[in-house]
């Protein structure tokens, strides 16, 4: 009799806990892939397509699936690669392409013919203008992706590096790094 009671209690416990687990899996279901979102948070959102994917999200998805390397994003730089490596537990690799300073596109408004092709190419709506009207870049919105350069029929768009100014100036790292001293004097002495 006792053994039956024990089995019944265990069975009841199993049913209750199973129901709780089932309920939890429905109630606290995680929508979407949190890993993709984390990866996307690291990517710089320039939407430039230099990685070969149409935007940062597809690249993030491909990284999450483990299909591609983490070193395909030049705007993210080595810092971005480092962060991705930390997140995914992968090895840090050198960037595929050259790392460029942050840029902004500039339209030469005298040359612009108002064809709207760059407006259609801009992934982040940072160009204003209308057909046969001069176009211009909203500089703070420009991500420097260079996607507006190829469609321009009159080549009136150029990229300019964003220099240091009082608004983006940063205090320097106070640690003075040890450099190997250039010993120029010694060979000269020898020559003499």
């Amino acid at each position, binding site marked *: 009799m006792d053994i039956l009671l024990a089995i019944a209690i265990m069975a009841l416990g199993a049913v209750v806990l199973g129901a709780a687990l089932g309920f939890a899996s429905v109630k606290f279901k995680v929508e979407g892939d949190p890993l993709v979102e984390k990866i996307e948070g690291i990517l710089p959102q320039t939407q430039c397509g230099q990685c070969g994917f149409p935007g940062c999200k597809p690249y993030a998805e491909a990284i999450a699936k483990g299909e591609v390397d983490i070193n395909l994003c030049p705007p993210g730089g080595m810092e971005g690669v480092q962060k991705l490596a930390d997140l995914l537990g992968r090895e840090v690799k050198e960037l595929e392409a050259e790392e460029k300073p942050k840029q902004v596109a500039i339209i030469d408004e005298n040359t612009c013919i108002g064809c709207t092709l760059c407006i259609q190419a801009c992934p982040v709506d940072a160009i204003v203008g209308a057909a046969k009207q001069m176009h211009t870049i909203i500089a703070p*919105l420009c991500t420097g992706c260079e996607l507006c350069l190829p469609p321009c029929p009159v080549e009136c768009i150029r990229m300019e590096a964003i220099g240091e100014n009082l608004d983006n*100036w940063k205090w320097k790292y106070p640690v003075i790094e040890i450099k190997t001293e250039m010993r120029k004097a010694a060979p000269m002495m020898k020559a003499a």
Partner: protein
Amino acid sequence: MLMNLFKFKGGVKPPTNKTQSNTLPIAQAPLPSRLIVPLHQSIGGTPRPVVKAGDHVLKGQLIGEADGWISAAVHAPTSGTVLEVAMHVQPHPSGLDAMCVVIEPDGRDKWIAHGPLDYAAMAPEAVREHLQQSGVVGLGGAAFPTHGKLTASKTVPMDELIINGAECEPFITCDDLLMRERAEEVVRGIGIFRDLLQPKKVLIGIEDNKPEAAAAMRAAVDALNEPFLVIQVPTLYPAGGAKQLIRVLTGKEVPAAKRSTDLGVQCFNVATAYTAWRAIAHGEPVVSRLVTVSGNVHAPRNYEVLIGTPMGELLKLATPHPDTDGIVMGGPMMGFLVPNEQVPVIKATNCLIAHSDRVFPPKAPEMPCIRCGACAEVCPHELQPFEMYWFSRAKNFGKTQEYHIFDCIECGCCSFVCPSRIPLVQYFRFAKSEIWAREREKNAADGAKTRFEFKQLRDEREKAEKAEKLAKVAAAQAAKKAAEAAAAAAAETAAAETGAPGNDSAAPESKAVAEATTLPDATLTTVDAEKEAKRAAIAAAMARAKAQRDAMPAKNTEAVTIEQQRAIDDIEARRAVLAPAAVPGEKTE
């Protein structure tokens, strides 16, 4: 007047070095050879220049218009000609350029028409507006537009108005001299702030190493019959920090990420009160300020200096010693070496110290942190500088924020006491500006992402709308065609029937039909037309359904690789060439 004073934690007592410069009265600095007036001299929006090269300006004429509410106007400090509106080096540790108006004085120093305002009749709004237009900003060093602080909180009753005359930083004596010589105007200025904010109490805090200034202020308060309290606070750096002075005078501790306004306290510098009074009672905008010139010079003194005076020219008045190798703007605790001698005096310049190794002996090299905790003992904000140092050095910025790095006021007490001579504040500044830069980048990336997603959404919507429009056109054309075909068919049958009237073998009922069709019989033609319309409607519906089916993307094209997509695009392109012939109704608009 006895009053219970409170204490703030920490603080240091560096040698004050104030006696060198506070013995002589304020002197008027002569007109410099040229004035370089930066447009951006206060926190907030950069004023827009309203003059151009070649313009003649008068003293006090507006040259930079305030941009937005948190921004203050900039005025010509003397009469003369605008040489250029161009980038010039700023008195900023970065040594970078910013937009400046360069004025060549004509020597006449002629004022623009100005006069006293009818203060009693002015609405509080108008007073604030006038202070903004007069370029009145906090002259204690932060240069926050004063009018922005003169609106009492709607939710918290205004308890105390604190006037900061503590001037705790070594070497600086400009507020001391101002209170000694112009106490009455300072007190009148405080009266304006009192009228706007309606506080319960007004407390003027002065460090007890300035007895003459305190006495002068007491006399002025009594003479003007104001209920202000002049309180001498113990000399302890940084008692002049706003949060520290509030703590000492009221016992209120301003929590992190909150402003003193949230506690019903507002704090102004004495020099700010003075300029506010000049702006209201004389209509004079802020074109000059008191600057202490001290350090490695023969004759340290306080000068009334026009804004925009090159620092080198000002320093020459005090005859610097020949071994002077730089100019420090601000005091020795929080000041910085300016990039060169040409940088101008701005509204935030309270002191220039001629730098030399004699006055400021070079620091011995930095040694490792021994975690003695001396920095934590002197930190007036009760932070743990040694922890923040460690994490800043390791560039672990998240951790520095956990240790509240943004509560650090960069007073320099920790660097001052560090036995290992670690420039702690520099590490904190580095970490703060790095965190800010990251924040900016993060915001920019988030903004770019939202705009990108919105653009994609819009593109899809536009595609769908276009497909719908095409489908409608196609349906209309199909319907038209069906109707035409039906009409043609009807005409044909009619022609066939009418074409054989003489045929005897034709059945009599068919003859009757033929007669009916040929005859203008109304009933029969309407039935026919109705039938045709129905047929056309069915054809149109079918065409619409087909168009909808075409507009829907095929299921198997959702997850294609780039190569596949390229192949599909190629095929689509070829198809598009052939399409007009195949389905003219759908592909032509």
